[in-house]
């Protein structure tokens, strides 16, 4: 299986020459195979978002490199799309749903407007929002807005999809729907998905592998394979004893890390730099 994304020794230091110097990532390395669904979990403030910002090349790492399809990248690569947690701040409020979804396609100059509309409409249908193309984001519920963000990423036809706690701001009911929607899309299109979340059960439910991050500075403590069979089911999968074993193990590691972080913090400089 080809490794589609590789992080090698990623390092990110904020304010290197100030007293508030913070090491967010320290020598973080991993690789993800094509078509894999991997999640990243870790204690609060460990740097999950920093990791995602660095992987998508929105932030420059202080050290290390990122390889996409064996090619080193320094700017947001066209093979990658990102879905942010706060859809309210990433969907363009002055554009309709349709125009939001076609946004990513506007940089693909070889497509005609008709093509773009067609691709966008397909993506909108795939996320279950057919009929809402001419609506504006503020007219939709939170869950629906996040679907638009997903449709936008889908239409872009990326090989790699980065998602930063995409369902955290959505109510619990909509969350389970979105989780299954995402799995459906993944099964249909076979992208590689890197999913950041604080919800351990969500990570276990969705993924092939779960990367457990340490407390700040973040590195990978454990890369756990999740063998729960496919397709997953909200009821059946969550009843499997293996599900809870994975969850238990991950929670144990994170709790240990949280305790260690607090112990360190009493001696460490004050303030936590949030990216």
């Amino acid at each position, binding site marked *: 299986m080809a490794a589609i994304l590789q992080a090698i020794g990623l390092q990110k230091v904020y304010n290197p020459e100030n007293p508030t110097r913070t090491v967010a990532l320290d020598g973080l390395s991993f690789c993800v195979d094509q078509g894999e669904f991997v999640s990243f979990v870790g204690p609060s403030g460990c740097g999950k978002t920093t990791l995602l910002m660095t992987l998508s090349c929105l932030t420059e790492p202080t050290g290390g490199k990122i390889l996409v399809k064996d090619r080193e990248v320094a700017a947001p690569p066209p093979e990658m799309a*990102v879905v942010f947690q706060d859809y309210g701040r990433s969907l*363009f409020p*002055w554009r309709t749903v349709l125009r939001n979804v076609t946004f990513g396609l506007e940089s693909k100059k070889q497509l005609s407007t008709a093509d773009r509309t067609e691709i966008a409409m397909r993506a909108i249908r795939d996320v279950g929002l057919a009929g809402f193309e001419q609506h504006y984001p503020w007219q939709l519920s939170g869950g629906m807005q996040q679907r638009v963000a997903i449709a*936008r990423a889908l239409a872009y036809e990326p090989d790699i999809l980065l998602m930063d706690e995409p369902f955290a701001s959505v109510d619990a009911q909509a969350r389970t729907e979105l989780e299954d929607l995402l799995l459906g899309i993944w099964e249909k299109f076979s992208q590689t998905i890197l999913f950041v979340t604080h919800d351990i059960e969500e990570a276990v439910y969705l993924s092939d592998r779960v990367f457990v991050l340490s407390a700040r500075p973040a590195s990978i403590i454990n890369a756990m394979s999740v063998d729960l069979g496919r397709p997953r089911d909200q009821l059946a999968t969550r009843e499997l004893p293996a599900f809870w074993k994975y969850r238990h193990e991950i929670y144990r590691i994170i709790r240990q890390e949280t305790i260690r972080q607090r112990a360190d913090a009493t001696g460490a400089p004050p303030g936590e730099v949030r990216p």
Partner: protein
Amino acid sequence: MKQERALGLVFLGALLGAWELVARLELVSRRYFPPMTHVILTFLQLSGSLDLPLDLGRSLGRMFGGFFLAVLLMVPLGFLMARVRPAYNLFEPLVETLRPLSAPAIIPVVMLFLGVGNAMKIFVVFYACAFPILINTVDGVRGVDPVFVHTARTYGATSQEIMRKVILPAAWPQIFGGLRTSLPIALIVVITSELIGGNDGLGFFILNNMRNFYIRESYAGLLMVGLVGYGLNRVAMVLDARFTAWDRKGRD
């Protein structure tokens, strides 16, 4: 709703009726207080002739001249200041120092240089509109959510595309607010400049007629100014609704 509107009309009608009555009964000397009907008649007469429309045109011309000059110069400057930190640091102290100096106060000074012609008035209007437009543009552009920019970058947009497709639309409501605020200011300042140092225009029209005791004509001029002010307000409201309907943040 309907009855409330009616109530408002009734009150307005009562006020106008009271005006008419008081004037006709000469409760206030007719020299100061012509009946409303006379004023309206005079207004219509003057509008039909060349006098009032010409002065109206002059005032509007100066007003929009100064306004558009301010837009042309201040919006790009605002973008520059918001995006390029050294530019902000360069101009901001000057802006903050000049801010308390309002346009009417400098009219006599400008008159020394530019006399009492159009140039003086247009410049003063420009000066008055410059600050709200500049400050709102800077605030609007600075206030653009970085997540919008991040999103655009991940979808492969170039810097130019980001400016055009993300920053401009996102900042537009606030910029428009600045434009909208400065229009009434422009009207006030142009009238003031015509009152203080004018030989034509609506402000001068009102003052001059009063000085020569053409009282009805003076009132008619005031009515015209009131109409312009009201009209500008309505137009601004309509444009506001049309262009920034999507901006839910500022709404309650």
